[in-house]
């Protein structure tokens, strides 16, 4: 009996310790490579740290934040990123939803279509940039060859700031639609057929069915897509490196690139850190806005 009680006790004790052992490696890595850097980053943002400061840097309070408010290039890059988010999120949302709607129609070889639309998702952002650079750039690229064969004059492509900016939008949508399409397909397939049958009995047409059944049923998927796309676009950088390099005239310079160059090319680690903090705040605000707007839609 005594033995049984003891083994039960040791069992309870084990149950308390064992999960921490299983969590150990992950928590260690998270602490060292995410939580610690986050804290250090906030600390740096209040100092005059540079890449070549080897002693402890000087605490300079909010001076970095004051500097960055007056840094026109930073404000421009940040504003450019926000514009990119505001423009690209609805486009991505629409294209992926439309492709998903197409894929739940009666269609043979659905799996093949789905696979082909998903395939660009597997290509690295660096290579996506190369692909579109190769097609778009110059008078003799595939794009301008097609334009010329249609009888038009060649177009200024990646040397035109406007065109370059929209090329970034296009390349993002091209490479990521397949991903969000899958999210929507799953959500569409989980809508009970009986809802549509009932609507049909009431004489609803296709558009009405979409407006009153399909669209409202996609609320969770919609929120997820909005949040994921928003975060993804705030992080944009690798694609731009090979597509436009940030140019022409900084027209495709976005926040991450600016922060990266501030830290690793101009060595202003403290200033770059304060920019990261600002960026994180803005990403958080956007995510909260997404939540808030989807909640408000619910109460309507």
């Amino acid at each position, binding site marked *: 009996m005594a033995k049984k009680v003891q083994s039960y006790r040791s069992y309870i004790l084990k149950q308390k310790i064992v999960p921490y052992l299983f969590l150990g490696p992950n928590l260690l890595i998270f602490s060292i490579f995410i939580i610690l850097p986050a804290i250090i980053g906030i600390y740096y943002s209040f100092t005059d740290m540079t890449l070549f400061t080897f002693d402890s840097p000087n605490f300079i309070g909010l001076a970095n934040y004051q500097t960055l408010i007056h840094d026109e290039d930073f404000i421009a890059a940040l504003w450019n990123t926000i514009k990119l988010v505001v423009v690209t999120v609805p486009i991505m949302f629409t294209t992926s939803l439309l492709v998903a709607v197409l894929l739940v*129609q009666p269609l043979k070889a659905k799996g093949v279509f789905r696979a082909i639309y998903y395939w660009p998702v597997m290509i690295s952002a660096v290579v996506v940039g190369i692909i579109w650079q190769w097609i778009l750039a110059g008078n003799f690229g595939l794009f301008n060859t097609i334009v010329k064969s249609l009888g038009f004059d060649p177009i200024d492509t990646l040397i035109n700031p406007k065109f370059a900016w929209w090329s970034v939008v296009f390349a993002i949508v091209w490479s990521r639609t397949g991903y969000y399409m899958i999210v929507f397909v799953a959500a569409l397939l989980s809508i009970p057929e009986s809802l549509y049958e009932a609507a049909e009995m009431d004489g609803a047409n296709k558009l009405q069915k979409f407006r009153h059944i399909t669209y409202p049923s996609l609320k969770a998927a919609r929120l997820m897509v909005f949040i994921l796309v928003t975060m993804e676009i705030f992080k944009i950088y690798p694609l731009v490196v090979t597509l436009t390099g940030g140019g022409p005239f900084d027209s495709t310079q976005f926040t991450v690139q600016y922060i990266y160059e501030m830290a690793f090319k101009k060595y202003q680690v403290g200033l770059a850190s304060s920019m990261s903090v600002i960026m994180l705040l803005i990403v958080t605000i956007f995510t909260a806005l997404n939540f808030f707007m989807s909640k408000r839609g619910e109460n309507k």
Partner: protein
Amino acid sequence: MKKMTIANYIIAGILVFIFLMPVIYIISSSFKPINELFSSKPTFFPIQWTIANYGAALKRGEFGRYIFNSFIVAVSSTFIAVIINTMSGYALAKFRFKFDNVIMLVILSTIMLPLEVIMVPIFSVLKFFGLYNSLWALIIPPAATPTGIFLMRQYLLTIPDEIIQSARIDGASEFRIFFSIILPNAKPAIATLAIFSFMWRWNDYVWPLIAISSPKKYTLQLAIANFTGEFGTDYSSILAMSAISMIPMLIVFIIFQRQFVQGTVESGMKG
């Protein structure tokens, strides 16, 4: 009804063209001789097929080494990711302990803290631990992914507690239970995690950008991006390497297509 179906096929066909044509064009371009690459009247397919670009790339920028580095990183990081994320998922799915909810919340909230935001201090941390300019910096830190833990936890919740309990009554140690019961039972989720992890690491650019400085340790993506500027207008090697960098993904994709769809649906996976 018939009309609708035909319209569907037409739209589906146009989309195939939009999604597939650019990829085929870059691959076909990689087989063009230099004079065709920069011809003023480019054709979609090469007139004269050649593999010279591949040979040149392998010689020129030590691209063979970069491919090797990418493989080492992707495979070892994936191996570690599978082990430690399954362990964490198991702890969070099958144990009740004091801080379980707090830990779950902390893990999930790290999703909101993208690498791009903390890249500057990460650089300092890597230096401090002597991981800077080492492939280990690309293998160990990224292996712990919050989405991976989440995916494993969700899957392991479906394994009945009775199996674990009866193994405990039989006197199996906790680690034995993990290796002989949990791991084999989690195969579908592990497959999903493994292929996603491989893709994330193989395609990654930002980690290598922060952590690697010497060209000998470049990964394929880092090399392609860095040489795009340096090689200037000489695109032949870049095109060949871009095509090569897609091959492993294409193979993985064809074999594991179902898992990709499944994984995307289950967790909105983001590296």
